């Protein structure tokens, strides 16, 4: 446990000192300013436009954090041969978990920055206090934590950085098309049997389903999120993350490094 925490703290320190960190902070600021500009063009929908654009910005930044901090640093560590020094001191699973945790801290930080920015702009310019934005931060951490874990699994499988980034992007896009895909299938239900429907539903759960964390519309319309859904989505995200990280550790333990 101590090894995991030590590695995660060094990963955190390493990330906040990199130029990329400052670049992503600047990007959030630009997105928030852009959301203000877009909202000024709307007719009486200022708060909604700020939130909509700001939440998209949060997703883009967290996606960049997952790939550039979460994954790229793993490959850099291997290039520098530093990986071997670390694996001489901690088990491979601790190394992966430490790196994952370090990236999770950064995802929390950026989600919080973006969420807080959107909250204040909505309050100042849209004259609305939307506490639901706190939920947006929570879902973002869960969503991009899971995406980082998937990238770590690809790394453990020996996939190179470029291909890994592309795969992670594909998983992200496909993971956000699950509900739509299933609804289309149900719409065509008359052509399929119950077995087909069961299979499609199973695929939408087995493949990382990011739609389960997407409550953007409910947040935008200031609707209360049902606790049952919150609990189910949280359990799904946490269980999936744990399973993917366990698989990554098991694979890395068996592979030549």
């Amino acid at each position: 446990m101590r090894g995991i925490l030590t590695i995660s703290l060094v990963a955190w320190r390493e990330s906040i000192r990199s130029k990329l960190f400052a670049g992503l902070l600047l990007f959030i600021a630009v997105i928030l300013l852009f959301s203000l500009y877009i909202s000024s063009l709307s007719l009486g929908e200022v708060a909604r436009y700020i939130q909509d654009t700001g939440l998209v910005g949060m997703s883009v930044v967290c996606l960049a954090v997952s790939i550039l901090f979460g994954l790229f640093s793993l490959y850099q560590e291997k290039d520098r041969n530093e990986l071997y020094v670390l694996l001489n001191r901690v088990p491979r699973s601790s190394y992966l978990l430490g790196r994952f945790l370090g990236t999770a801290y950064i995802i929390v930080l950026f989600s919080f920055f973006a969420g807080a920015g959107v909250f204040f702009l909505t309050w100042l310019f849209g004259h609305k206090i939307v506490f639901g934005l706190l939920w947006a931060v929570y879902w973002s951490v869960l969503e991009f934590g899971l995406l980082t874990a998937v990238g770590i699994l690809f790394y453990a499988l020996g996939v190179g950085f470029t291909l890994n980034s592309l795969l992670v992007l594909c998983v992200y896009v496909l993971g956000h098309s699950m509900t739509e895909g299933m609804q289309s299938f149900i719409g065509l239900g008359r052509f399929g049997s119950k077995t087909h429907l069961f299979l499609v539903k199973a695929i939408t759960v087995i493949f990382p389903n990011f739609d389960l964390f997407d409550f953007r519309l409910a947040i935008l319309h200031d609707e209360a999120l049902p606790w049952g859904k919150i609990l189910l989505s949280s359990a799904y995200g946490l269980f999936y993350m744990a399973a993917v990280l366990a698989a990554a550790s098991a694979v890395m333990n068996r592979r030549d490094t």
Partner: protein
Amino acid sequence: MAAEPIIEIDGLSKAYKSREGRIEALKDLTFQVRSGEILGLLGPNGAGKTTAVKLIMGFLSPTQGRIFFQGQPLKVGEPRRRIGYLPESFRPNPNLTVFEYVQFQCALAGDDGDRRRGRAMELLSFVGMDRFPKRKISDLSKGMGQRVGLAQAFAGDPDLLILDEPTSGLDPIGKGEIIGSLLEMRKKGKTIFFCSHILSEVERLCDRIGILVDGRLRFIGATSDFKQRWQTEDLEEAFRQEALCEAS
């Protein structure tokens, strides 16, 4: 009486599958490193030195063979906390300072709190880097980076040091400093096993040498015995003859 072996390598082989077929990187490697000695594994590029080290460190799984450390078998993939390791072409984390990096390694090696800070400073002083604790690693020269690498290898006070090409790419002054630190470690009773293809440093440092050519250990023993085998006073000449003999 010969000292007890600290590490025993027994029939270690490693083969890879490639498009050209099966490549045997290491063939039936058997030797011991005795406690308190400096053993240098010499070989031309591609001889299998790094493969041997990675097998010993558990980063690669052997096709055949076993490794024992202080009499206990070592498992693939498990950390070797009692072995200090410096990999080839090692570059420490460039976003940390020298002190932070060594302190981080001391923390992973099990030191905590004030002891960790004290130990990190002690190690930096030992490798002559105590004047630059706050310097960022990205601002260090290659030689300084290598000294930081050596300091991290000493973290946790390991019984055995395994170093892969510790002086590769360094200027003569940098090489001299690294060799000085290693000789100092030997005085402290540490065992050192290292790989190199630089014959002068091997001759200066080692109690015994191993000659690895094309994945096979051709000789292990004192440098003088190796030179006598090829009836020459020049280690480089003896080494060249050994390598050519394998080629023919």
